[in-house]
């Protein structure tokens, strides 16, 4: 009888499996444990984490370290993944032609058309053409309303107002004849005066109809076809707003510009292709498919993408002692996303949702300083340390301890930095692939799309369901059910969307409602894991045909997610394969596959392990 511990050092998590192997190679699994990986995978820094996790597993098995015969470690080749995000569109307003922001509380409703006149000049104005009153900073709302009422009394047709402060309702409430008022125009002093302008405010809950329609603007300003063509981008930018101002200036324009983010050159076994990052994720992934398998990727020097790939390369070279130019990027995942960005030239701090591309890149070394790690580990534990076989083989062996699995089997290991897949056919051949992009990218997408700037909160949003605190005594869950509490909820959750994390309720400080946050969360998971699952299975399946796979077993930390496995199962439902979350050894869920596989492999053929220092 031999007592062994299989240890899997992952990028994020180190897992152990303790078992007793009988003389005929029969295995009795005793326990498992996990802990965060200390340091970068495959380096001597891992020792601390490994020792902790082996001790914990032994404790659970009620055995001592001195009883241990061997520690089996995976060939922990470091995987470094880099994440970057580049905004590829930009909205630019010139000559203050448009004020398209959505103040919370515009005043009045309807459409007003006239010439822009400063509030101070209203008194000198003679009756004649209609005017739009521009109310600058420091003017009290009562004074503003009083001045406009006085002007109207003198026969001046005031059809709308543009206001600096958050005063629109206050002013509109005090007008004898209400007109649409757009407020919170921070840079109101830049509104051109003496120009034709239109102010539109929709009824609450509605959006504007005239200024968001090119022909609406043409009607208002009497534009000809050529001029209408020029204002079409203005109309487009105003779609969905509750209020807007359009000023007709000679050269006013709104442009949606593509920002060059640099070109990405993908070198693969089937050739080399260059693609502009601002062409979007689809183009990049199509180019990649054309040259796959990737042998290296390079970013245009001096460009954003160049900088990003250089960073990945540098980290890796530092870790492994390889020269930076010898480091090879082995996969790239591009994802379309969007980020709220300030509009250039805007007068009211308007934000536009700009397109962006997120890139994950992955570098995998050949074996790193594994022997050093193994030697240190032996010192720390006083036990023989064997470096086990190929990681993918081990993962498959471990996955096959899941009840109900059979060959041909594919595993999908959904980690933090990479999505790994392997296939074992009936004849025992294992093919594997390591793809860039996994749980960390999902977190990053959630963080940036919601504009949270808080990775840790984004991680919680990824992992736990949402609810809305509807009172101090109950929340409404995502599925519409109410949950009541006897003690009042914390004051900072009031009327907020909260994450029901394992450490309690956490408010999400954003304007988005629950459904929007949920949608962003699910879309991010889809864009990364469904895409990667299909990409990975396609690459490992015999002949690239998913129907050839009998069983797919989903493993890894992200397989614990409450919806990712369902999303993947749904995506492969059409292929007639059995796909589910792994349950390693019938008890560990999607965790512990490699650690378990190391033990199983050792039991089958103990001589295959590479002994270190014994």
């Amino acid at each position: 009888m031999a007592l062994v511990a299989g240890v899997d050092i992952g990028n994020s998590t180190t897992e152990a499996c303790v078992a007793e192997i009988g003389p005929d190679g029969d295995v009795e699994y005793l326990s498992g444990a996990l802990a965060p990986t200390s340091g970068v995978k495959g380096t001597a820094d891992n020792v601390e984490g490994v020792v902790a996790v082996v001790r914990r597993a032994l404790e659970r098995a009620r055995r001592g370290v001195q009883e241990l015969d061997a520690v089996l470690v995976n060939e922990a080749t470091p995987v470094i993944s880099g994440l970057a995000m580049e905004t590829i569109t930009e909205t630019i307003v010139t000559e203050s032609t448009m004020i398209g922001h959505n103040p919370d509380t515009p005043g009045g409703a309807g459409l007003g058309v006239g010439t822009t006149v400063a509030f101070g000049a209203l008194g000198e104005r003679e009756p004649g053409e209609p005017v739009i009153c521009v109310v600058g900073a420091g003017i009290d709302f009562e004074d503003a309303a009083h001045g406009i009422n006085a002007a109207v009394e003198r026969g001046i047709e005031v059809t709308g107002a543009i206001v600096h402060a958050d005063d629109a309702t206050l002013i509109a409430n005090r007008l004898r004849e209400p007109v649409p008022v757009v407020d919170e125009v921070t840079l109101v002093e830049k509104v051109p005066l003496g120009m034709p302008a239109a102010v539109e405010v929709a009824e609450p809950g509605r959006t504007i109809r005239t200024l968001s329609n090119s022909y609406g603007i043409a009607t208002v300003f009497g534009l000809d076809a050529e001029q209408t063509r020029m204002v079409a981008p203005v109309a487009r930018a105003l779609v969905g707003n509750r209020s807007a101002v359009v000023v007709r200036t000679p050269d006013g324009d709104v442009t949606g510009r593509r920002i060059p983010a640099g070109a990405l050159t993908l070198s693969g076994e089937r050739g080399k292709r260059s693609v502009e990052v601002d062409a979007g994720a689809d183009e990049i992934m199509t180019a990649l498919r054309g040259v796959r398998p990737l042998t290296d990727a390079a970013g245009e020097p001096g460009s954003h993408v160049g900088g990003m790939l250089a960073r990945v390369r540098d980290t890796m070279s530092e870790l492994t002692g390889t020269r930076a130019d010898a480091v090879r990027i082995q996969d790239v995942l591009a994802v379309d996303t969007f980020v709220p960005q300030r509009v250039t030239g805007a007068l009211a701090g308007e934000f536009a949702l700009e397109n962006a591309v997120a890139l994950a890149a992955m570098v995998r070394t050949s074996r790193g300083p594994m022997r050093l790690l193994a030697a240190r580990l032996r010192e720390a534990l006083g036990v023989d340390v064997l470096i086990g076989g190929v990681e993918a083989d081990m993962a498959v062996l471990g996955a096959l301890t899941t009840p109900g699995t059979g060959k041909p089997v594919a595993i999908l290991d959904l980690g933090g930095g990479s999505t790994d897949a392997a296939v074992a056919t009936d004849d025992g051949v294992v093919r594997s692939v390591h793809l860039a992009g996994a749980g960390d990218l999902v977190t990053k997408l959630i963080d940036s799309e919601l504009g949270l700037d808080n990775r840790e909160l984004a991680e919680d949003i990824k992992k736990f369901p949402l609810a809305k605190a509807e009172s101090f005594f109950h929340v409404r869950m995502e599925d519409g059910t109410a949950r009541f509490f006897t003690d009042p909820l914390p004051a900072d959750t009031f009327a907020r969307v909260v994450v029901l994390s394992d450490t309690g309720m956490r408010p999400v400080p954003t304007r988005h409602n629950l459904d929007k946050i949920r949608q962003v969360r699910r879309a991010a998971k889809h864009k990364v894991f469904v895409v990667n699952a299909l990409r990975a299975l396609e690459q490992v399946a015999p002949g690239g045909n998913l129907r050839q796979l009998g069983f797919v077993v989903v493993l890894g930390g992200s397989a614990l997610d409450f919806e990712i496995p369902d999303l993947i199962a749904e995506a492969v439902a059409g292929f007639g394969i059995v796909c589910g979350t792994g349950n390693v050894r019938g008890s560990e869920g999607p965790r512990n596959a490699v650690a378990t596989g190391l033990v199983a492999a050792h039991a089958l053929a103990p001589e295959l392990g590479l002994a270190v220092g014994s």
Partner: protein
Amino acid sequence: MADTGVSTRRTLRLDERGTAGPGSRTDEVVIGLSPAFGDFFTKTIVDIPHAEVLRELLAGIEEQGVHARVIRFRGGSDLAVIAHAAAKLSGSGIAVGVLSRGTTMIHQKDLVRLSNLELFPQAPLMDLDAFRKVGRNAARYAKGESPEPVPARNDFMARPRWQAKAALLHIKETEFVVPGADPVELDVRFQLADAG
């Protein structure tokens, strides 16, 4: 000149209209005033006229399309007590409590008294803009929205510098407490003093 900003001086007239009861409109915010606010006292600790304080609170609420009701609490001078009692009378359950010296709090009826939605403990830092934003946030809570809390300014020098004056003002305010007195509904009017 209209475009040079606040040059007018307003005076505040508060007329009592009997005991205040619970509100029936769900879109109302109650402003709870301390015993001597706009009465014995007319300015905050940093000499901001109470007329302007109340006008900004009301403006912040009105701009959000929400109704305001002003109630004086004579029964005590503790801000949490005033704000919480005001919240209990508010149709939306949301109230703003404000002391003569300028300390302010947003409260909700279901919260325990010692909690609050937003607290502005440093009266010397409360300027007109802050009062406007307090009114705005209270109204947004009443609408079931979840506003960003008004950024709490903090000045570590303010506390020692103003501590003595604050204590004096508190003692004075407390002299106006009528224990057990009912809250009183107020009619609020602003009058323009000469424009100077």
